[in-house]
């Protein structure tokens, strides 16, 4: 449309491929390739092996994966509950109240994750709430970090919601709780699913706050990837990274399937 000549089109596409392939496609391919090899001293990896994967689904690595999954699921569910509640409450408030509430819940996005980690560490290493050294401090920090994203996407969905539905239900005599449970929440279900997927993916890959907080017995997968690459085991790290990416993608895929089923309602 922009370029009509044949050569012009091909030049644009060649330029696109030249930028896109080495910058975006190659990094992911390289990690997958490295995870299946034992050496990389030339142009290409050598020594094909699946040993990194057999190690990745055992012992410490398997424990890190379940740690990450449990953390991500717990943090996403709690964040989704708090974020949705706040979004529903702010939608019912006046313009000023809504702006204050939205700003409060958006704040964790702007604050660096490392600082969120530091703040949680400082606050919960002292009485009355002593959580330092337990798994709860990691889950708490993840919840704080993803709540903002849950709130953001749910409140965007509430703004797009047609008020006719709830008005119609209310005019037919439905109680407010009935309107919320049977009209509003079902209409919001696709957005809630999308928000859950987003929260899960963010929590699975969270490293910054986790590095400040993790206790020795609650080691999420990103931390394990860091410690193994830091030790020099780049190939083990790649295999773990592929496991992390696959787990995230599978969860996102499952969530998007629920979404398509929900949109039939």
């Amino acid at each position, binding site marked *: *449309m*922009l*370029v009509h000549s044949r050569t*012009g*089109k091909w030049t*644009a*596409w060649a330029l*696109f491929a030249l930028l896109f392939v080495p*910058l*975006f496609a*190659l*990094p*992911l391919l*390289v*990690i997958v*390739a490295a995870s299946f090899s034992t050496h990389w001293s030339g*142009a290409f990896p050598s020594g094909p092996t699946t040993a990194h994967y057999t190690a990745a689904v055992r012992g410490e690595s398997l424990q890190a994966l379940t740690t990450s999954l449990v953390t991500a699921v717990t943090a996403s569910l*709690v964040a989704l*509950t*708090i*974020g949705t*509640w*706040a979004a529903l*409450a702010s939608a019912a*408030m006046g313009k000023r*109240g809504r702006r204050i*509430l939205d700003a409060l*819940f*958006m704040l964790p996005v*702007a*604050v*660096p*994750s*490392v*600082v*969120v980690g*530091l703040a*949680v*560490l*400082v606050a*919960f290493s002292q009485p009355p709430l002593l*959580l330092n050294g337990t798994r*709860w401090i990691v889950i*708490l920090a993840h919840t*704080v970090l993803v709540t903002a994203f849950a709130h953001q996407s749910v409140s965007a969905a509430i703004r797009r919601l047609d008020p006719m539905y709830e008005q119609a239900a*209310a005019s037919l005599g439905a109680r*407010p709780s009935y309107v*919320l449970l049977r009209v*509003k929440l079902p209409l919001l279900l696709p957005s809630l699913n999308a928000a859950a997927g987003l929260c899960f*993916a963010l929590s*699975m*890959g*969270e*490293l910054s706050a986790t590095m*400040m907080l993790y206790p020795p017995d609650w080691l999420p997968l*990103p931390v394990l*990837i860091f410690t193994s*690459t830091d030790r020099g085991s*780049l190939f083990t790290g*790649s295999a773990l990274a592929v496991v992390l990416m696959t787990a995230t993608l599978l969860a996102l895929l499952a969530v998007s399937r629920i979404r398509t089923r929900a949109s039939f309602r």
Partner: protein
Amino acid sequence: MASAVRLAAPAATDQEPGPSPRTSRSIPAWVWALPPVAVLALVFLYPLALVVQESLAPGAYADVFASASFRDALVTTVWLAVASTAGCLVLGFALALVIAFVPFPGGKAVAKFIDVFLSFPSFLITLALLFLYGTVGMANGVWTDVTGDATGPFQFLTTPWGVLLAEITYFTPFVMRPLLAAFSQLETAQLEVASSLGARPLRIIRQVILPEALPALAAGGSLVLVMCLNEFGIVLFTGAKGVTTLPMLVYSKAILESDYAAACVVAVVNVALSVGLYVLYRGVSRRAGA
């Protein structure tokens, strides 16, 4: 966390009589906002206030501001963030232009791939760059194979340039997404008219597309700027002692040196920078309608 769970658990059950015109007559709407705000205050605002309080320890600010490592980190953080943002804007604009206006088979798949790319953690990029441009990586391997030299010429990974490359790679999709959304709303007839009146592609980009894309560029750019200022994983995985940014300094002061007062001072500076910029971003993106 136990308390957060306890506070959050009733959320599922208490949510039923949610906000509505009818309850607002008996219970004002702001009462419904109290429980989530209370949770947020306990797990986020109170800890943040403690950080500010801790940073006010006598002499902490003077000590940190006087140290060379802090000033270096501040300068490195800001120039890396500004340079990465500029790189992301140029690259994102160019790539989005091709996807939107020079369509090719598979363009939809590329746009999907970008969405997926966004859901991966940033440190994977640095890990990949180690295999691509590391001392024994692909690029150096090709070089030594071809020329027979003992070492390759690509030794930039542990310098700020390696961090810059990783940040541009990781954050460019964050610019492309709003741009693609803006481009899909652009009236293509405008382009056809401009083209039929004899405007060449570069002129169409400058005079028709760029003005339409400016709000999306501003919104995407300021978001990326904030995220670059806050980026930690990329710098940590680079493992370079020469590259210290503010988040890295917070981590090393708090965890490696156990100097919490200094860590809190650096944290306050970093938060002031990022939140200031984020307020700007919200203003810009609200005007852009994004």
